[in-house]
């Protein structure tokens, strides 16, 4: 799957989980850029992304991403 396509699909998951249609993710987007994205909602996002792409992240990966780009990189490596 193309990186752009993954980003679009992840963006849809973010909109759904965080209940915010204005979200427009980029590689550089960090948790501090989106008010609703905190450590609580992060796990919910992870669960939904895992379900969506049918993949499984490790605990270390989940806690190590610094921005959306790194998360997309991990997803891409699993597909």
């Amino acid at each position, binding site marked *: 799957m193309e990186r752009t396509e993954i980003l679009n699909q992840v963006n849809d998951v973010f909109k759904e989980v965080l209940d915010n249609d204005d979200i427009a993710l980029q590689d550089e987007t960090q948790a501090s850029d989106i008010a609703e994205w905190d*450590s*609580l909602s992060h*796990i919910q996002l992870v669960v939904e992304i895992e379900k969506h792409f049918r993949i499984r992240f490790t605990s270390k990966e*989940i*806690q190590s991403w610094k921005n959306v780009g790194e998360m997309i990189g991990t997803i891409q490596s699993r597909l």
Partner: protein
Amino acid sequence: MTFDSLVFLAFFTVFYLLYWFPFNNNLKLQNLFLLFASYLFYSLGDWQCLFYLIGLSAANYYLGIYISRSQKVTVRKALFITGLVIDIGGLAFFKYFNFFVTSSDSLLHAIGLNPDLHTLNILIPVGISFYTFRVISYLIDLQQERIAVCKDLVIFFAYVSFFPSLLSGPIDRAKNFIPQLERPRAFDYNRFVNALRQILWGFFKKAVFANHLAIVTKDIFGNYQHYTASALLFGALCYAIQLYADFSGYTDIAIGVAQLLGFDIARNFNYPFFAQNIAEYWRKWHMSLTSWLTDYLFTPLNIAFRDYGKWGIILAVIINFTIVGLWHGANWTYVLFGFLHGCYFIPIILKGRLYKRKKIEKKRLIPSVRELANMTGTFLLVALTLVIFRAETISAAFSYLRGLVSISIFAAPNYAVWPTAGFLSLFLLIEWTGKDNEYPIQSLGLKWPTWCRWSLYMVMVTLIYYYSVSGPTEQFIYVQF
């Protein structure tokens, strides 16, 4: 030594002048002086435990160095676990050993055994829960490569013992605080004025509101058998505001004092009584502790339990909040307090609303009926649960709560509530109108004529003085934790 003592005023005045004048030209000397002052501050109240503070700092400093030098994952892990055992073991020994012994003794007696367990006469180091959490977060962040090792011994020791937040927090993380110790600090007039304003507000909350409410709650909680349910409800509401005014007052002073020294420390409160549900309340109350536990306890648990859906989140939340309760002290009342708060999340999680925040729009003066109902409901729930937090024992808490379940809840309170009710309303009004600021009076009067604004400050100072000399002064509540 606490902030509301003359000894602190004398200590800080001398320290402040030396800090900014002779020592400001040399960062290393300034940090060393800050460390020395922090140890002096600590030892004036608790000199015996200074050795523990120094020992804990040294253990974590050297473990940090060895962790960063080690190439082998297994060695790093072993050093990291050693650090956790030292930090958590020390906290458990000083704070929870006797609780464990007495609880085990009761349990064994209940099943017919007579083990003859003895408690120890342990002196609990003041502030241990706060500085232990600082060093634990440093080790975890280092192990997970979120931060670089701190090689400067003075800087690390000063981070652990920074006196404005040493006794009652906020619990600063190394990631935010150590870089501030590593760079030169410049005096900034606007920051200086803002710091003094926040300190003034902190003292005002403590001396005028918290100390006054302490008299009311002492009376109602101490003689609860004689009061109507309506008076008991009033007492519970007063205690919630007292605790908030006391702890957030302390925090405002700590933040202000740190700002005077050129440091930005963690925020601890964001108008928690205007939260619309319990999840939002905990995002606004004692934020440095809740964010710490969210990062280092709840998140790993939540990740581990993520296959169990909402019930996994519920389990993680309940464990997390039981630990929040236990963090406050070795008493089953705190455990029950935390456990109940964890349970209050269950409906929110089941409805899928944990992550969806309802925010009151900024600059809006009048809340909607729904917002007001949500805020009132959350506040009542918090206040009633704090009855357990305040009580000496669980049975005492339930005696008080049983007193609330009475037809006299609809009767006029047999306590002179009106002067204090007016007081509470004034406090909540100031908080509400200032809720868009970091603290309510941050921008109050900035557009007024100078004499007008200064009149307000002088009235506040006069009231602080009046309440400090005319009434009993209470120790800051969270210093005991």
